[in-house]
């Protein structure tokens, strides 16, 4: 008997999903007995899904295979798909990779981060269900499957948000998330029903084949509903207050999941919707629509972050701002834009995950997330501080890190689009992206200053660095932050190009599911692989130069001042508390806790925009009815726009 | 804005207003400048009025008796505690104190700021003992008697 590995690999996607769901089931069964067994089960199920998905890299991403798994072997008959299917092309796998890595890191972090909480069995069960549903969503080849997964995802996320229900606002955040999130889910469901009413099928590939040639207003309405639905899962404007509320109160490991994974599901849904199902990304209106929403999310959220006093709430706004970047470039409809968007989506999961985990570490160590209260933690938690700085540099797009590589691609994509089409709108988009980047930087400077630098609040004098188990997942993410920044061309070659081509290649997706020639029979033109014009990337020569310069600068200091025996600072006195020489200069005053609080920074900027900020503050009223109203209005606007312009 | 600009650009082609001070000679102070104190001990009569009027009490007087009964009087002005109000000079009836126009009162040691003068106050003639008085009286009487005798001899 020969074991046919290349066929067996077809089972990997479903096994990966099932291992997570089974893990949830088993851990809830056995977990009450012993924490060790529970953790083992959780760890094993995460590990299995990670390994299975990693094993798919070679065939799917590198060799371009599209895996089709028909549940119960209900293969399509006469060009009509009956059964449920999992369809894994490079795009799905790309997102699946993001998901499993994030889940793994978050899970390992949870073992230590959540160790002080009770009823952890529920936590891990919900956590694994969340993971499984997200993985199921991105690997699914079936529209209704996607809806079910979205619902599971929303529930578990809500439940996990409210998990620490004694925290102030945890229940409130969860409630808002549930109410408005269910509005989004409903919107998806309506869209699916409308599509089904016209297509009489739920298989993504088949719909993708039939839709573009089908002309009906119902389809356009369905587009609006689906877009808003997926958008609400990505927390795009105007659904962003939910994310802010949910992130701020959820445990950090769950914040990572919500920002790094759940929003990616929304992004994935939008990509599938626009590129695969409707294939209408070449229409100017859709480009304007998607890009416009992206730009608004990006800009509004980054300015909202200036108003925040809560560490995680601030991160939450940034999270949506970065997703706004992704959506913006995906809306360009160019291969480079897609590539940039995917890269940034991946990077966002990594660096935002890292930042949420550091926030979690700070909360774990000090019990506070208040930016005005914290300060000077870099002395007490040097490791966490270094990790935070890596994350902050990445999200602000400073050169050596991954954020720079992807943001560079984003600017190029938008400006190339502008150059090609001669359309001023995309110039504005490019400028907005650049400015948002600076504002992001400003906002993270604020966090760094008010949490890690400055003076130590005496309240937190006994703070200890978090345990190694919490730092290792963070270091994994930090390494992932640095590596793509160092080798963007490899990432481009191995991950982004296959995923981009797969996303743009709707006929290939259709043919893989429905048999070759199926797309052509619906008059969908065969896909010509698009060249990704990247006018330069961060190249090794620049590394060399930067490295040499750094060495030089160090040498200068060493030569000129460093060998000066008399000027070497004595280490001993730096630590004694009595020598005023080593106090901060505070106009001669005694060194008391005199931190410039987070809310006091950037006065010059906020003062000029005070009207905007006060309007925005009122607009994010915190009342669930208002948020529902914004959601409904979004649906209504999308409907009107789609009906008029499409 | 424009006037400032023209002024600034014009200044480029004008000689600077800066004095050459540390190089070259020290500029003179204003006519009635009250600078470093000059003390003329030779005309001092040790009346002590200057010390009475000095607000920061910058003078110090030491009186050192000499074996011959004279007094060596040293008056020291500590310029680091002087306000240069010129009160002492105004009150000095003998014009022994004057405030010069030397303003360069810079130093690294406390001694650099001291202005002092010494003069010797002659001791008054010693007192006569009763014997001496008697003797003197006797002498005087003798003289008187001699004079009277001479008159008598003439008359």
């Amino acid at each position: 008997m020969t074991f046919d590995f290349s066929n067996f690999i077809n089972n990997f996607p479903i096994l990966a999903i099932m291992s997570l769901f089974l893990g949830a089931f088993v851990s809830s069964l056995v977990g009450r007995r012993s924490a060790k067994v529970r953790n083992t089960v959780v760890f094993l199920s995460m590990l299995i899904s990670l390994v299975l998905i990693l094993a798919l890299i070679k065939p799917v991403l590198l060799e371009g295979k599209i895996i089709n798994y028909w549940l119960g072997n209900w293969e399509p008959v006469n060009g009509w798909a009956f059964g449920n299917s999992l369809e894994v092309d490079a795009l799905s796998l790309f997102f699946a990779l993001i998901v499993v890595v994030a889940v793994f890191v978050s899970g390992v972090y949870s073992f230590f981060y959540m160790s002080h909480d009770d009823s952890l069995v529920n936590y891990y069960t919900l956590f694994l269900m969340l993971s499984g549903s997200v993985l199921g969503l991105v690997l699914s080849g079936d529209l209704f499957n996607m809806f079910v997964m979205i619902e599971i995802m929303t529930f578990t996320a809500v439940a996990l948000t409210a998990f620490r229900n004694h925290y102030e606002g945890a229940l409130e955040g969860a409630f808002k998330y549930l109410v408005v999130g269910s509005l989004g889910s409903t919107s998806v469901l309506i869209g699916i029903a409308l599509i089904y009413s016209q297509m009489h099928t739920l298989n993504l590939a088949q719909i993708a084949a039939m839709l573009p040639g089908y002309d009906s207003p119902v389809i356009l309405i369905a587009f609006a509903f689906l877009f808003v639905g997926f958008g609400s899962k990505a927390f795009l404007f105007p659904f962003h207050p939910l994310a802010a509320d949910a992130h701020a109160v959820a445990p950090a490991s769950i914040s990572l999941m919500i920002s790094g994974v759940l929003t990616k599901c929304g992004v994935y849904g939008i990509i599938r919707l626009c590129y695969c199902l409707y294939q209408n990304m070449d229409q100017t209106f859709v480009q304007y629509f998607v890009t416009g929403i992206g730009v608004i999310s990006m800009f509004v959220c980054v300015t909202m972050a200036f108003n925040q006093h809560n560490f995680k709430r601030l991160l939450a706004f940034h999270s949506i701002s970065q997703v706004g970047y992704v959506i913006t470039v995906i809306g360009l409809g160019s291969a480079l834009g897609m590539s940039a968007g995917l890269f940034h989506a991946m990077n966002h999961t990594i660096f935002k995950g890292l930042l949420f985990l550091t926030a979690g570490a700070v909360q774990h160590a000090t019990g506070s997330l208040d930016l005005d209260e914290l300060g000077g933690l870099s002395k007490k938690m040097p490791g966490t501080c270094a990790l935070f700085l890596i994350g902050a540099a990445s999200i602000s797009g400073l050169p050596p890190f991954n954020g720079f590589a992807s943001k560079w691609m984003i600017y190029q994509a938008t400006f190339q689009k502008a150059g090609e089409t001669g359309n001023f709108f995309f110039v504005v988009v490019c400028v907005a992206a650049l400015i948002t980047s600076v504002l992001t930087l400003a906002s993270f400077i604020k966090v760094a200053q008010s949490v890690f630098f400055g003076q130590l609040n005496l309240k937190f004098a006994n703070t200890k660095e978090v345990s190694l188990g919490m730092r290792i997942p963070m270091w994994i993410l930090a390494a992932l932050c640095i590596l793509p920044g160092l080798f963007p061309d490899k990432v481009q070659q191995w991950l982004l190009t296959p995923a981009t081509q797969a996303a743009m290649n709707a006929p290939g997706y259709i043919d893989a599911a429905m048999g070759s020639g199926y797309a052509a029979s619906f008059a969908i033109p065969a896909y010509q692989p698009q060249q990704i014009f990247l006018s330069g990337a961060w190249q090794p020569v620049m590394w060399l130069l930067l490295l040499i310069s750094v060495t030089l600068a160090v040498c200068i200091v060493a030569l000129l001042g460093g060998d000066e025996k008399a000027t070497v600072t004595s280490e001993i006195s730096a630590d004694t508390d009595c020598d005023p020489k080593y106090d901060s200069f505070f106009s001669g005053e005694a060194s008391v806790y005199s931190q410039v609080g987070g809310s006091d920074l950037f006065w010059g900027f906020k003062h000029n925009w005070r009207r905007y900020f006060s309007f925005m503050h009122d607009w994010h009223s915190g009342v669930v009815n208002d948020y529902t109203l914004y959601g409904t209005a979004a649906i209504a606007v999308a409907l009107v726009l789609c009906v008029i312009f499409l | 804005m424009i006037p400032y600009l023209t002024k600034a650009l014009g200044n480029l082609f004008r000689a600077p207003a800066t004095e050459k001070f540390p190089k070259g000679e020290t500029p003179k102070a204003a006519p009635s400048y009250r600078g470093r104190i000059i003390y003329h001990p030779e005309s001092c009569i040790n009346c002590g009025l200057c010390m009475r009027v000095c607000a920061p009490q910058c003078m110090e007087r030491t009186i050192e008796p000499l074996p011959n009964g004279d007094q060596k009087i040293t008056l020291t002005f500590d310029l680091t505690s002087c306000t240069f109000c010129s009160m002492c000079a105004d009150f000095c009836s003998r014009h022994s104190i004057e405030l010069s126009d030397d303003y360069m009162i810079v130093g690294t040691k406390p001694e650099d700021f001291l202005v002092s003068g010494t003069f010797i106050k002659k001791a008054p003639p010693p007192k006569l003992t009763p014997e001496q008085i008697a003797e003197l009286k006797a002498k005087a009487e003798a003289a008187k008697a001699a004079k009277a005798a001479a008159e008598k001899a003439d008359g």
Partner: protein
Amino acid sequence: MFQRMIDKSMAKSPWIFHINAGSCNGCDIELVSVLTPRYDAERLGFRLTGTPRQADIVVVSGPVTSQTKDRLVRTLAQVPEPRVVVSLGSCPRSGNVFKGSYCVDGPLEKYTHVDVSVGGCTPKPEAIMAALAKASEILAEKRKEMRQA
């Protein structure tokens, strides 16, 4: 060679930090007038810094009142070596007219070694210039001593 260059430039770019230890502002105004176009201390490399950390010459004016004493001591300690302390006017050395007041904790020499003093109430800018020039010479000497030590 670098060391010798540093030695040379030490005297050419002394930066001043000014502490007002309860002064009546007379000396402070004169110190600022040193930087005006007429005297232009900048041509000798002098520059007023805002922080003691970058200062080479600390100029103290005022009779060291009990309110300023702690601040003065702390700030003086925060000046990196080599440093030169200049007392400006009569007050820091003696207390001047405030001598013996209940709120004066002078003189300055109780708290630090004063390298150069300027007398006068207030000193003329030329005198201040001369004192600063002297201070920068002392600065260079101190630097040499430190290097040889």
